[in-house]
């Protein structure tokens, strides 16, 4: 397999999993107004759940990693485990945001929850192997009797199918009466309550759905990469997704898809193609974060509605 072909596959898998995560975050923030700065934890939960479902028990796997679980389940079930884990964690995070606080305070609360989760996982080694993270051995190999090239393309296909399924579920939430109600909650929570909307239930349902998408994203990603560690889910990762949502167009599913493409692919991958300025390791990544942060600020300053602003359906005004 040529280097370009492999690179394309990596790009497509990242794009697919980023799309799922961005859709989930957009549902929570862009549509419902939940400022979930801790969203990355749902992705991490999905990844870890997938790993502990897939791996055999710690002892039989050689004992060089410590973790709970280890059920040795097949791929589809492990994937489902990731979805459920993301959903549950999403609801738990959501509970911290329910207090009648200003939106930026809620954001900080949810961010702190994500930091706490990272600290606990890192410190408590028997839980999920602490700072070292977990590695999947053997790695998932669909159609393992075929050649590796085909296997990788099959994985891309699996990611694509999950994206289509995820998008269809997403649309059920962002369109129609419920989509309208969620946006009302976003625009003015109290006015929405005053006309009978149960804010608590709506927010938690949205966090469950958004978390499910995040969990699926994490599970698919870890299935491809083969490992996951606390370093992979620093709080800045939520910022990258948030930028994609803002740049693309908050509340607009298609806009957010475009934003994800622009940010995840063009920006973060594009930085890899910058000429090597100095011999320092990680310089390109650092530049990537600088550009990302700047883009976010520029968009909030100049075009907060994003590339594709949210568009509401028209019902024909003329009587």
């Amino acid at each position: 397999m040529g280097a370009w072909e492999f690179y394309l596959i990596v790009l497509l898998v990242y794009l697919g999993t980023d799309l799922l995560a961005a859709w989930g975050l957009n549902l929570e923030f862009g549509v419902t107004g939940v400022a979930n700065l801790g969203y990355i934890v749902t992705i991490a939960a999905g990844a870890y759940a997938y790993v502990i479902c897939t791996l055999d028990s710690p002892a039989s796997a050689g004992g060089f990693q410590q973790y709970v679980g280890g059920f040795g389940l097949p791929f589809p079930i492990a994937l489902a485990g990731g979805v459920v884990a993301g959903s549950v964690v999403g609801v738990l995070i959501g509970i911290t945001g329910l207090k009648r606080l200003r939106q930026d305070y809620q954001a900080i609360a949810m961010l702190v929850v994500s930091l706490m989760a990272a600290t606990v996982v890192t410190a408590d080694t028997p839980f999920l192997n602490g700072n070292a993270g977990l590695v999947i051995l053997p790695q998932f190999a669909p159609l393992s009797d075929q050649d590796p090239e085909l296997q990788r393309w099959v994985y891309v296909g699996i990611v694509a199918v999950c994206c289509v399924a995820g998008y269809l579920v997403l649309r059920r939430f962002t369109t129609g009466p419920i989509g309208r109600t969620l946006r009302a909650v976003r625009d003015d929570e109290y006015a929405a309550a005053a006309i009978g909307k149960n804010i608590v239930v709506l927010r938690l349902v949205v966090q469950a759905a958004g978390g499910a998408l995040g969990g699926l994203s994490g599970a698919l990603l870890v299935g491809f990469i083969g490992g996951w560690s606390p370093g992979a889910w620093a709080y800045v990762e939520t910022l990258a997704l948030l930028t994609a949502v803002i740049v693309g167009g908050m509340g607009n599913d298609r806009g957010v898809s475009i934003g994800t493409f622009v940010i995840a692919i063009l920006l973060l991958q594009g930085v890899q193609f910058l000429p090597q300025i100095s011999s320092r390791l990680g310089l390109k990544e650092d530049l990537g974060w600088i550009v990302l942060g700047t883009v976010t600020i520029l968009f909030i300053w100049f075009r907060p509605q994003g590339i594709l602003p949210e568009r509401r359906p028209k019902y024909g005004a003329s009587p």
Partner: protein
Amino acid sequence: MSGARGPILEVEDLVKHYGGVRAVDGISFSVERGAITGLIGPNGAGKSTALNVIGGFLPPDSGRVLLDGEDVTGEPMHRLARRGVVRTFQMARVFGGLTTIENLLVAAPAQRGETAMGLVGGKRFWGGQETEHLERAKEMLSAFGMRDKADEQARNLSGGQKRAVETMRALMARPKLLLLDEPMAGLSPSLSKQLEDLFLELAHDGLSLLLVEHSLDTVERLCSKVVVMAQGRVLAEGRMSELRTRREVQDAYVIG
């Protein structure tokens, strides 16, 4: 249904501390069914706080609120709304990101599209009901002369238009009791008059209204019964024309 002939709402010894003050200090009054009841008093009398507590925005510290004879004390806003108690806010709060007509549609009660079945079933499940709501919303917009603004983003509306949207939205929710916090504030005299006529018509059709209002003339025109508050307490209850002459009411407005 108990209390179907009596007052639609009864408040008993309601107390609310707010910002370190006894904003509502043991008030008791009743709201008449199918009529407009006014809640008046000088600034700082606690009228808005009382309305906030009755409307479920703030929980009371003690006391009771009875709706149709049923104890609904401390119930949250959305639960009260589903019982038919709908409130409007002093500053018109429209859903800016939705269009005008969507602001109305979102208020329609018991929408099938908001249930779990609705998520699963999709348009086939809730489409029919949605069309009914759409018709109702269009009619209401026409009645308020805002049909041409139906697809306009609500955040782009003028202040008076937003106030109208808020009133329409409250009506879409099919209320039994409407709680109104100075609904005419900031409206032009002609719009005010239109709103007054609307309120009288609604009361005639059986809707009950509790109106917090500053203008005593408006209150005299609209309200069959008036409750006067001052310093967190109820001073007097009765018809405006009688109360106007009462000494303690006059004093409250001078001092308070």
